[in-house]
C-alpha cells in the first residue's frame, strides 16, 4: 500500500492542495497527517476542514504544537507564531477547534508510530534535530519505523542492531529501503513552510509492500500563499520566508 504522509501544513492552502493532488496522482491510497495544520498560514479554516474530511475518510492525524496551542495558549512560541495563533483562534469555528483539541499525540499502525516531534515526550514538543534526539526518540518506542515532522527539514535516522546511529539527508525522489535489521526514524519536511532551502512543499510516500520511503517535493503557488498571508495582516516575514524556503 502507498501511504502519503504530510507534516506541518500550517494553513498553507496552496501547498496542501498541491500535495494532495500530487500524492493522489502518484497513487496514494491512504493519508497520514503528522500535525501542525494551523499557524503561520492564511487558510486555517479550509486546512482543518480538509484534514477533518480526510480523517472521516480513514486518514490518521496526530496533534502538533500549533494545533494544541489553539486551546492551550503557550508563552514559549516566538512572536510571529504567537501572533498567527491568536489570529487563527479567531478564524476557526467551534468544530474545528474541538477537532484540533481532541487529536491524539501519537498513533500506531502496524509496526509504525506517528508523532509530531520527539516520541520520548510528545507534549514537550522537542525538535528532532540531531542523532542524539533521534536515538532518544527511537528508544522510547517499540515501533520499527517512526515518522515525525516539527523541524521542517527532512532527515533519515536509523539505529543498528549494535546500537549505532546513522543520520542522512535524503535526496528527493530516491526511495530509501527501510532495512529490516534496524529501526528507523523518518523526519518529514514541511508541506506549508519548508525550511531546508528548497521552497517546494515537502512530503513523504511510504510503500509498505516494498518497505521503502520516498521524500517528495511538490511545487505550488507560493505567490498566492504569500499574498494571502499579507492580505490577512499576518506578520510579513511569514510570507517572505515561503519563497526562500527558510
Amino acid at each position, binding site marked *: 500500500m502507498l501511504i502519503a504522509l504530510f507534516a506541518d501544513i500550517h494553513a498553507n492552502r496552496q501547498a496542501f492542495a498541491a500535495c494532495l493532488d500530487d500524492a493522489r496522482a502518484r497513487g496514494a491510497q491512504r493519508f497520514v497527517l503528522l500535525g501542525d495544520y494551523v499557524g503561520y498560514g492564511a487558510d486555517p479554516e479550509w486546512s482543518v476542514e480538509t484534514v477533518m474530511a480526510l480523517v472521516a475518510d480513514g486518514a490518521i492525524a496526530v496533534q502538533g504544537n500549533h494545533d494544541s496551542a489553539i486551546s492551550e495558549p503557550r508563552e514559549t512560541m516566538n512572536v510571529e507564531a504567537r501572533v498567527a495563533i491568536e489570529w487563527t483562534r479567531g478564524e476557526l469555528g467551534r468544530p474545528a477547534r474541538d477537532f484540533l483539541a481532541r487529536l491524539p499525540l501519537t498513533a500506531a499502525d502496524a509496526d509504525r508510530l506517528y508523532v509530531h516531534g520527539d516520541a520520548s515526550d510528545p507534549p514537550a514538543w522537542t525538535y528532532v534535530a540531531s542523532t542524539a534526539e533521534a536515538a532518544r526518540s527511537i528508544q522510547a518506542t517499540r515501533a520499527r519505523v517512526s515518522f515525525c515532522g516539527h523541524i521542517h527539514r527532512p532527515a*533519515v535516522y*536509523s539505529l*543498528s*542492531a*549494535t546500537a*549505532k*546511529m*546513522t*543520520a*542522512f539527508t535524503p*535526496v528527493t525522489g*530516491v526511495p*530509501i*529501503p527501510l*532495512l*529490516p*535489521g*534496524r529501526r528507523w526514524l523518518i523526519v518529514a519536511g514541511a508541506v506549508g513552510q519548508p525550511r531546508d532551502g528548497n521552497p517546494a512543499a515537502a512530503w513523504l510516500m511510504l510503500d509498505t509492500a516494498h518497505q521503502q520511503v520516498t521524500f517528495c517535493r511538490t511545487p505550488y503557488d507560493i505567490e498566492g500563499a504569500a499574498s494571502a498571508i499579507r492580505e490577512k495582516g499576518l506578520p510579513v516575514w511569514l510570507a517572505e520566508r515561503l519563497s526562500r524556503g527558510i
Partner: protein
Amino acid sequence: MVKALLEPGTVIDGFRLEEVIHRGGMSMLWRVTRQGDDLPMVMKVPLIAEGTDPAAIVGFEMEQMIMPRLSGPHVPKFVAAGDFAVQPYIVMERIAGKSLLPRLKKLPLPYAEVADLGVRIATALDALHRQHVVHLDIKPSNIVLRPSGEAVLLDYGLSHHEQLPDLMQEEFRVPFGTAPYMSPEQLKGIRSDPRSDQFALGVLLYFFSTGVRPFGEGETLGAMRRRLWRDPEPPRKLKADYPPWLQEIVLRCLESEASRRYPTAAQLAFELSHPDQVKLTQRAERMKRDPLTVVWRRRFNTDLTAPRRKPEVTAQLTAAPIVAAAVDLVADATLNEALRTTTQRMLATLPSARLACLNVHKLHRLALDTTLDSAGHNKRVDRLVALRHWAEPLKLDGARLTVHVLEAVDPADAILEFVRANRVDHLLIGARDPSLMRALLGSVSAKVAAEAPCTVTIVRPLRETAP
C-alpha cells in the same frame, strides 16, 4: 528466529542450493538454480553468528540497498534478496569469466595488456560512478572479465551510495578496505570521493605492470598511513623498459592528493586508450622518489592535510566531461570559427573538462588509398597539425587536449564509434550549408545527432534570413 540449515538441495524462496563456490570470512557463495530461469546465479549468504564482526552485517545491508539499483554490463545483475529476520541472502547473476586474482601468479604482465585491463576497469568504474556509487574496495579479486570483455565489479559491502544512508560511515570510526589498495582519503575516513577508486586502480596497474605493490602489504594503520606523504618508487626505477606514458598515468592515479589525479575514471580510460596522446610531465621521467624535504613538507604541512569540503560524486562527474569537437577541415572558415567559439563557451565554465578534436579522413570505397598525397606529404600528419592549429586559440593545457584523425568510409559511423568507445559526454559538430552533395548523400551531423548516445550540439554560423 529460525535459520534454515544450508546444504545442497535446500530450497530458499524458490532458489535451490547446488554447491558452495566460495567460503570467505564474511560470507558464503552458493551456486543456485530456479525452475524456469536460465540465468546462471549465485547466492551470497552472510556468515552471521554469535560474535560476528558487525562489519559483516552492515556490509551486507549496504549491498542489499545498493545492488538492486545498479544496472548495466559492469555489475552482476541483481535477482533477489532475502530478509534478515528469516534468512539473509542476495541472489545475483553468476558471471561466466574469472576474476583477476589468478593473474597474480603471472606478474608482471606485458604493458599493452595492463593498459587494456586498465581501460576496461576504468570504464566499469565510470559506469558505477555515474550511478552514484563509489566502490571503495577495488582489487583483483573483485574484478571479473565477462567473456564479451567488459570488466564486472563485485562486492558492494564497503561501497558508498551518494543517495542512500551510508551505514558504514557511522558504524565504524576506523577505515575499512583492503590495505594495499586503500586510498589516502579513505584512511582519513572520507568515503564519498570517486577518485578513491582511481587510486586503487593505480595500485593494481602498478602491481600488474611491475610485479611489486607500490605501498607494500602493510596491514597496520601506521604502515598504511605512510602513503599519505610517501610516494612509491617510480616504476621505471624497477623496470628500465617501462614506458614513460604508462608511468605518467600510473603515478597520476597514485597521487596522494585526490585533486591531482584524473578528474574522472572516464578521463583515465581515455588516456589509457590513447598512449600516443598522453601529455608527459616530470612524472613520466622520474627515476627516484621525492626527496625527503618534499616528503616532510607533505607530512607536516597541515595545510595539505586539512580536511577538504566533502566531495560529491555526481558534482565531480558533471564538472569534468569529455567534450569532442568534430572539425571538418575543408569546411569554410566561418563554420570552423563558430565551432571554436561554441567550444570555448562550453569549456570556459568547466576547468576539468577535456577536449578531443576529431577529423575524419574519408576513405574511398573502391580506389586504393595511399598515406602520401601527390606532393609526398603524410596526409594524416597534416590533418593532426591542422587540428592542433584549429584548437590553438582555445589555449588549453596539453593534458586537456587531444587530436584524432579517424579513417573511415562513412564519417558519421566513425564519429559515432569514437563517441561510444571513449564515453564522450558532449559532441559538437558543425552543420554544413545545404548543398547538392548533402542532399544526395545525407548529412553527417543529422545522422550523428540522431544516433549518438550523448548530447550533441549542432553548430551553425548565424545566417541572415530573408524578411
